[in-house]
């Protein structure tokens, strides 16, 4: 089944390998558009998309909005966190209201896992999950995979280390689900309080030290650490965290030659990643941002039914 046959994009867990490949392949011509002088194609003219973010993330929202605009879709944003939730409106009512405004696609960020699944069941609009609780962030997973494939020429069989708060990370989950479909060897590392129970059952190797995880790795994906986790008692202090888990240039000796470093942003420099590392030659963090727009364009294009050969025109 092609991804263009689907109603919604809720996560990478239930997406097939071919569907992921279709999105990544479609993102290649989209990236060309992003790099052009005039970043506008008429592909989705007359189609509407709306972003609804129950949790702030200006970056992700802007990335989706630009992706829509570059394809000539009409994009708008409903600021929910300040309005309807405080008035006690239910999610169902908010969605019904949006539906009546007529957009084809709703792009949703929510602090509760499964909220976009609930919306998808209750609307005829297409739903794109832009991050739900601690569950998934599928377009982030896709842009990471796109970036990795661009640099390594393939995804199959790569060794990937994911560092940080695996337990609460939707980026980690989407990466794990996506990468495992390509036979990658995925290791996760962080303090035991932030490593989920039974993670081995997924086919992922848990490590308590950063060194163990990045030995021989082709890809190192560093996650943002939420300082609130320290307040919740999951690690003793930010200082201790950075002593044990901050990625520094000397760590790269352990990784495979030509290893690349990813971070979903925004970074806590000096906490999970050192500045030298973030700005160093192995870092592909800035490219991830550009690829994010391209991948989201690909997703919108496939979901909103633009004509196939218009893609690169």
């Amino acid at each position, binding site marked *: 089944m092609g991804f263009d046959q689907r109603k919604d994009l809720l996560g990478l867990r239930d997406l097939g390998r071919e569907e992921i490949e279709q999105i990544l392949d479609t993102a290649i011509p989209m990236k060309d558009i992003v790099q052009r002088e005039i970043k506008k194609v008429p592909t989705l003219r007359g189609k509407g998309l709306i972003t609804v973010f129950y949790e702030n993330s200006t970056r992700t929202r802007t990335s989706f909005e630009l992706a829509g605009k570059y394809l000539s879709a009409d994009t708008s944003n409903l600021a929910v966190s300040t309005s309807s939730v405080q008035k006690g409106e239910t999610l169902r009512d908010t969605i019904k209201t949006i539906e009546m405004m007529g957009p084809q696609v709703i792009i949703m960020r929510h602090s509760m*896992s499964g*909220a976009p*699944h609930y919306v998808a069941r209750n609307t005829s609009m297409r739903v794109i999950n832009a991050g*739900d*609780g601690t569950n*998934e962030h599928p377009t982030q997973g896709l842009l990471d995979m796109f970036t990795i494939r661009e640099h390594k020429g393939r995804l199959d069989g790569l060794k990937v280390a994911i560092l940080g708060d695996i*337990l609460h990370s*939707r980026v980690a989950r989407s990466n794990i689900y996506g990468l495992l479909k390509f036979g990658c060897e995925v290791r996760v590392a962080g303090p035991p309080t932030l490593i989920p129970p039974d993670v081995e059952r*997924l086919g992922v190797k848990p490590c308590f030290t950063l060194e163990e995880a990045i030995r021989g790795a082709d890809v190192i994906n560093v996650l943002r650490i939420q300082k609130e986790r320290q307040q919740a008692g999951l690690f003793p202090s930010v200082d201790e965290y950075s002593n044990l888990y901050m990625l520094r240039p000397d760590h790269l000796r352990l990784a495979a030659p030509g290893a690349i470093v990813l971070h979903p942003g925004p970074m806590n420099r000096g906490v999970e990643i050192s500045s030298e590392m973030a700005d160093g030659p192995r870092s592909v963090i800035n490219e991830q941002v550009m690829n994010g727009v391209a991948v989201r364009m690909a997703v919108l294009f496939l979901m909103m039914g633009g004509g196939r050969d218009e893609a690169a025109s």
Partner: protein
Amino acid sequence: MRLRVRDGRIIDPAHNVDSVADVLIEDGRIVGLEPATDPDRGSTQGDAQVIDATGKIVCPGFIDMHVHFRDPGYEYKEDIETGSRAAAAGGFTTVCCMPNTDPVIDNGAVASYVRKRAQDAGVIDVLPFGSITKRQAGEELSEMGELVRAGCVGFSDDGKPVMRADVMRNALSYSRIFNAPIISHCEDLNLTRDGQMHEGYYSFVFGLKGIPAEAEETMVARDLLLARLTGGRLHVCHVSTRGSLELIRRAKAEGIAVTCEVTPHHLTLTDEVVGSYDTNTKVNPPLRSEDHVQALRQALSEGLIDCIATDHAPHHLESKDCEYAAAAPGIAGLETAVAVIMDRLVHSGALDITKMVSLFTVGPARVLGLDRGTLSPGARADITIIDPDRVKRVNPETFNSKARNTPFAGMELRGWPWMTISEGRVVAHDGSVG
């Protein structure tokens, strides 16, 4: 008023009865059984109403010692009348309702109100539990003597575990005056905070905050030690983990006065079903992993578990039609319990039918010290008749309960309650209460 239930297969585990016979009822009491081979059978038939129970299983009236009827305070979710009707439709003749109402059943007046409302509804018998502590606040003991006088048959702060060990100790000790069980919802709230589902493989996969089995087990261990210390009677409600069962097994062997119950949903559903984010799968304690479910089934057939109880927790649509984390936990279980157990456990061969009947009758009667759950002459004529081969799809729209929250919706199940007789009166027939 005389009634003859004819030619059914009588299963009365309290007296090891399993034979085809007639049950005779007069003025709301059991007169006795007449074997189908008795040549004089039916000599009194002239003036008795006859119910043909051929091919059906005739049992003592089922008892559900754990329901939430939301009355007083939340009657929009359920009231004592609709709850009673749901119970009758589900094959139950006696239910015990939990005190987490508003006001809490922590005084005689509220307990009397519940008894009165149930009598007015006139469907089945409702016996209240009083709260262990005033307002279920976990600090001071309720006036247990007054609650018992008003008809309470046990004490529970269900849903709000008694976190203070000293308070639990005093409750187990003081309740010995009345020989009434302390029904404990075992949950360490510090370990379950914000938890949405069982902690394990699937909680990571679905990205929901986990509730470890140990949150239940540490409290079971604590309460067992306090029961041993005080000599009080402890009943552990909705046991859901392998570890809790092991603790209870050891305590029973040691002679500690402990009993326990398990729900139909914990026996038949695993945490894997939460993946749909269907809020009807959200319960407290949460649906556990396969390993725990297998342990519960094993313990059930071994006799470690004293009774099956539904934890009937009716909710209004808006408490369930929302995001998973925002949903209220609970299943409206009264009308599906028997069918779920019949279909998934009895017909699959995992549980003997006689054992099943005892878990719904003499089992809970013993926990509560009630003179019920048997068809002995002179007993209340409470009878549950099951059609073991009736196949029906679960349709919440036809529930007698006000609630529709069930994860079993749409499932085709074999083996349903066919008739419910309460104190000699037919109160439900094939799901309809009249």
